């Protein structure tokens, strides 16, 4: 395979001795997780060039941001990356709180952390099932959704929605967490570790999975840096970059958790990072449940009509797929002047063209699965 790679790079623009053909993948392809289109130039089974073509689910979020008041844009945030809706809402309320200098009560921050981490586990469960069904095993999908439903039940009891929560408000939360939620979360924290151990025994140690992922799709730390890839992709390349540590927000500094990294930089490393991250999320939830105290869940003085002081503000969070940042420019009016959403999947996918050169197609799809793409998150 390595030798093959060299011969390919010798003839990168279709001038080589081998005949090439163009294979169009998508925009409706079951392995592309949505409406991603990849225009591949193939040399037999080998990819000479795989260029993602995006925009098939561009939904004008940034334009909408300029047409809506701050509060009215809030529901949109859970629809950008619908699998980690909590994190995205967190970034948006965070940027408004930063601009208005609103102090969020401790209880609200703890509940935000708990729900965010629950959401992260739910998101990773979907990724896990989807990756394995890409690789040919549908059964884990059923298990993954089973565990995910437990999380969704908890979050639904809290805010009424299963997927698009829109639970955080400027200065606090939509409503307080009741004992049902807290006890349910405690039960879930106990329930999940044996399941994760089972997944490790059944799937992660499975020789077929290892053969499909190990040494497949290497993405070095340097490549991550050049493309701005974040999240499990850069952590799978051995760099402990995590917004929760590097730009601490909310009450994350109060928790003791590890940032899992693997230096191998292959698809398996990214797989293992996510599996370990779920354990760390459970640890965070466990600590948060111990530390949470009674108190108000909304800041006392949040203006009814929100007008931010002029200027630009950023707020970044660690979403399930990596660094998500909201950059706003306010001109002092009731609506943002400009709203930029920096989404992790966009940067993570942008390295696909370079990383997939010289791979065989099934391996490239395995690597794409390990990037954990959510297409509306790319297109926005």
């Amino acid at each position, binding site marked *: 395979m390595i030798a093959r790679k060299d011969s390919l790079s010798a003839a990168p623009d279709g001038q080589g001795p081998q005949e090439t053909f163009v294979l169009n993948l998508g*925009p*409706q*392809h*079951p392995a592309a*997780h*949505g*409406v991603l289109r990849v225009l591949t130039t193939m040399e037999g089974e080998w990819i000479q060039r795989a260029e993602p073509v995006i*925009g*098939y*689910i*561009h*939904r*004008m979020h940034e*334009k*909408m941001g300029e*047409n809506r008041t701050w509060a009215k844009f809030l*529901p*949109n945030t859970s*629809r950008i990356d*619908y*699998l980690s809706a909590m994190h995205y809402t967190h970034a948006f309320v965070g940027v408004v709180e930063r601009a208005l200098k609103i102090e969020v009560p401790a209880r609200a921050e703890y509940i935000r952390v708990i729900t965010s981490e629950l959401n992260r586990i739910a998101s990773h469960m*979907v990724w896990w099932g989807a990756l394995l069904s890409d690789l040919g095993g549908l059964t884990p*999908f*059923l298990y993954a*959704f*089973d565990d*995910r*439903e437990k999380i969704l039940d908890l979050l*639904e*009891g809290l*805010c*009424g*929605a*299963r*997927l*698009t929560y829109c639970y955080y408000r400027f200065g606090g939360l939509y409503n307080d967490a009741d004992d049902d939620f807290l006890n349910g979360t405690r039960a879930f924290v106990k329930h999940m570790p044996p399941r994760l151990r089972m997944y490790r025994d059944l799937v992660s140690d499975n020789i077929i999975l290892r053969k499909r992922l190990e040494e497949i799709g290497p993405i070095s730390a340097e490549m991550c840096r050049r493309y701005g890839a974040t999240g499990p992709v850069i952590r799978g390349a051995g760099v402990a970059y995590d917004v929760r540590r590097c730009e601490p927000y909310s009450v994350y500094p109060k928790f003791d958790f590890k940032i899992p990294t693997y230096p191998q930089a292959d698809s398996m490393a990214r797989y293992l990072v996510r599996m370990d991250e779920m354990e760390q999320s459970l640890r965070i939830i466990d600590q948060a449940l111990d530390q949470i105290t009674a108190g108000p869940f909304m800041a006392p003085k949040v203006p009814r009509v929100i007008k931010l002081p002029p200027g630009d503000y950023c707020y970044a969070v660690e979403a399930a797929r990596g660094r998500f940042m909201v950059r706003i420019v306010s001109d002092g009016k009731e609506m943002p002047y400009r709203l930029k959403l920096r989404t992790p999947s966009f940067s993570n996918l942008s390295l696909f063209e370079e990383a997939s050169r010289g791979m065989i197609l099934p391996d490239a799809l395995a690597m794409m699965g390990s990037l954990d793409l959510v*297409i*509306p998150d790319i297109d926005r």
Partner: protein
Amino acid sequence: METPLKSMGQPTPQSFQPGPQPAPGSERPVECSQIAQFAKLDDLLALGRSYSLWPLTFGLACCAIEMMAAGMARWDLARFGAEVFRPSPRQADVMIVAGTVNKKMAPAVKLLYDQMLEPKWVIALGNCALSGGPFNFAGQYGIVEGVDKLFPVDVYVPGCPPRPEAIIEGILKLEEKITGKRHFPVAKLKE
């Protein structure tokens, strides 16, 4: 089926809108069954079709996750015979348009619909597929405001996203439409 929890705009089974029923032969190609009627055989075929609907694996956006959830163990669409998701339009009977269709994607969606074999049905899932949903605002430049602008829709399922119960109810509605008779009980809401 229980009442949805704190209502956050979640649909109740009653709120389904009936789709616009195309007059026979007006929008659909004339089927053999419209020329020659074999009453009992047709009924039998319809019954068979309605309980073995093969949906197209076709996720667009958020609603697709709920569609997947509906097929998984908790909600188990298999109880109603619609769990065999086929990736190829040639093998599918029903297209569940789950998510936003934008102008770049619209030709591809239309092509998929055209590639499906008769008889075929369409379920528009979620507000985006109904009308553009949250992305339908004055000055929008990108989305198709409802998939019924592209091809006829048989069942509309509102919600953003619709709950899995609503998706199952949509399938049941479609089965009712195919056979002309509701075989499963209608969920009753508590007053």
